[in-house]
């Protein structure tokens, strides 16, 4: 893997006439795991799409090692960055191994293709999907599909990884395992961007958290600096407390006693 620097500068995106991102700046460097967090509709997935080169930008630009992603050829881009989408669909009943092998397609007819089997085997083992390599993908559970898709993304062996809520369908063990693998990939020199809703999980694995609110960057920095009760309460419009349990940051919503709604509680305090 060679170094990949992913940079968004002044990115503004409108979807169907509605502005979703406003002048967002973000740089992700090799060796870093950056989490995109924020409330629903804050623009996390849109920012990830913009970083992937999927959506046209109204203003600003996204560059990967200095080259704009929007005008890079699909194959060249696929050798530089891999993307895990929130929803994995598959039109036909391919077997899991075949799906993971699809991640190797950007390397078709290159010297790297010699390592296809080795890379695929390793990716499947890392994602704990080797046991159902011969099963048909659409028959897997949502979490198993997410892991198989993550294996496909790993098999692509790119210096930049973009993951949109990879842990949404996973149990605790596989959440930790997946983010552990993502962090190891970052330690090995990749730039990794992960959209996460679970702020405690983000605090545990992210080097930096980019907190989005209303399509703008509300904060960008190490978890300890970004995850403050005051900032989170303002961004999420709900009282949030941040504590430390056995040395790791834990973010929990302040819950009103039964019978009193959270909003009322917020007004009182």
């Amino acid at each position, binding site marked *: 893997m060679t170094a990949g620097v992913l940079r968004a500068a002044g990115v503004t995106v409108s979807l169907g006439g509605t502005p979703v991102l406003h002048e967002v700046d973000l740089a992700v460097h090799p060796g870093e795991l950056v989490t995109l967090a924020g409330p629903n509709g804050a623009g996390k997935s849109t920012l990830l799409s913009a970083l*992937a080169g*999927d959506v046209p930008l109204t203003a600003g630009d996204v560059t990967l090692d200095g080259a704009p992603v929007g005008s890079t*050829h*699909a*194959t060249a*881009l*696929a*050798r530089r*960055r*891999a*993307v895990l*989408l929130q929803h*994995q*669909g*598959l*039109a*036909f*009943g*391919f*077997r899991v191994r*075949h*799906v993971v092998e*699809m*991640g190797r*397609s*950007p390397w*078709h007819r290159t010297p790297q293709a010699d390592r296809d*089997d*080795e890379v695929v*085997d*390793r990716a499947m*083992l*890392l*994602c*704990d999907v080797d046991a159902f390599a011969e099963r048909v993908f659409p028959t897997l559970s949502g979490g198993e599909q997410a892991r198989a898709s993550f294996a*496909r993304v790993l098999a*692509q062996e790119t210096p930049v990884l973009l993951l949109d809520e990879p842990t949404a369908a996973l149990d605790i063990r*596989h959440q930790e*395992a997946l983010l*552990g*693998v993502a962090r*190891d990939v970052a330690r090995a020199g990749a730039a990794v961007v992960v959209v996460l809703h679970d702020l405690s999980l983000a605090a545990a694995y992210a080097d930096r958290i980019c907190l989005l609110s209303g399509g703008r960057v509300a904060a960008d920095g190490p978890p300890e600096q970004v995850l403050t009760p005051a900032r989170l309460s303002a961004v999420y419009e709900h009282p949030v407390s941040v504590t430390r349990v056995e040395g790791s940051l834990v973010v929990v919503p302040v819950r009103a006693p039964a019978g009193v709604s959270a909003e009322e509680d917020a007004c009182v305090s």
Partner: protein
Amino acid sequence: MTLADPLTVAGRDSASRPTLRTGRVAARVGLLGGLGLALAVAVVLAAGHGQLDVPPAEVVGSLLHRVGLDLGPLPSHPQGETTLWQVRFPRVVMAALAGAALATAGALMQGVFGNPLAEPGVVGVSSGAALAAATVIVTGWTFAGTWTVALAAFVGGLVTTLLVYTTARDGGRTEVVTLVLTGVALNAMTSAGLAFLMFAGDQQAREEIVFWTLGSLNGSRWEYVAVSGPLAVAGLAAALLMARRLDLLALGDRAARHVGVDVERLRLRVIVVVAVLTAAAVAFSGIIAFVGLVVPHLVRLLAGPGHRILVPASALGGAVLLVLADLWARTAVAYADLPLGMLTALVGGPFFFWLIRRARSSAGGWA
């Protein structure tokens, strides 16, 4: 799951993988070889049967003598050789070409729409091609000689495929209902067009249009093969070259782009190839529906959805199916040539019903 030692990974799988791989390769070779053999048998059988029966050994003998090998017996009947080479072989070859072209076009359309219900006949591409061809016949245009009809069928097929693509596709997805309804609308429009041509045309044009809508290989000539053959072969070759990337389209448009597929360009190329293949089949034989639906589906059941096996196996399977269906069409009733399109629809219709029921009962159906 922790970061595994690569050595143990390699050690663990080196034992199981080769057998698995060789097993798969053997299965592929077996399927394609079996289908190839079935096609050879079907061709010999179909060429020998008819109002004048030629035994299979004499059919093979006649073939071998033509390629310069003095092996096997020649047809014993005085008219045998002429019947074989002027009537039977062009017809059997046309059947094989049309079957291969239609089944491949079906497999391609299903791949590009990510939807196993897409088929040139069902979504109206065949009738669009037939309408354009019928227009040329009625108006009597011959701007490109024997190629005129094929060229018109190609343009008609291309226009209708593009129309289906732009109307049935929304946000990178093709809903089953939208696709089928688009087909209903298109088939209604092309039927109206054909009805108008029948109304406007003379007696001879009317007969020819009826021939289009029923679909038949009656009266196939080597001149037709000379036009359809290159189109079908070119389309098949292009389909084989695109097979690997078609697999990736199953991931959905965005994910396919993320693994390096130029989705829009691939899709446009596939649509052109589908139009070429449909034209090759429809130009001289009219509408033969459901071949593109039934054959790829059966191949998927046998060999899985990978297009590198699906495309060639569908081509061979489609050829076998139409050669046998055409044999049945001309021998089922003595001295009568049943319309081939009627027979394939008779079998394909119930199959379509079964597909829809199966889709409803399986979780979520098709997206």
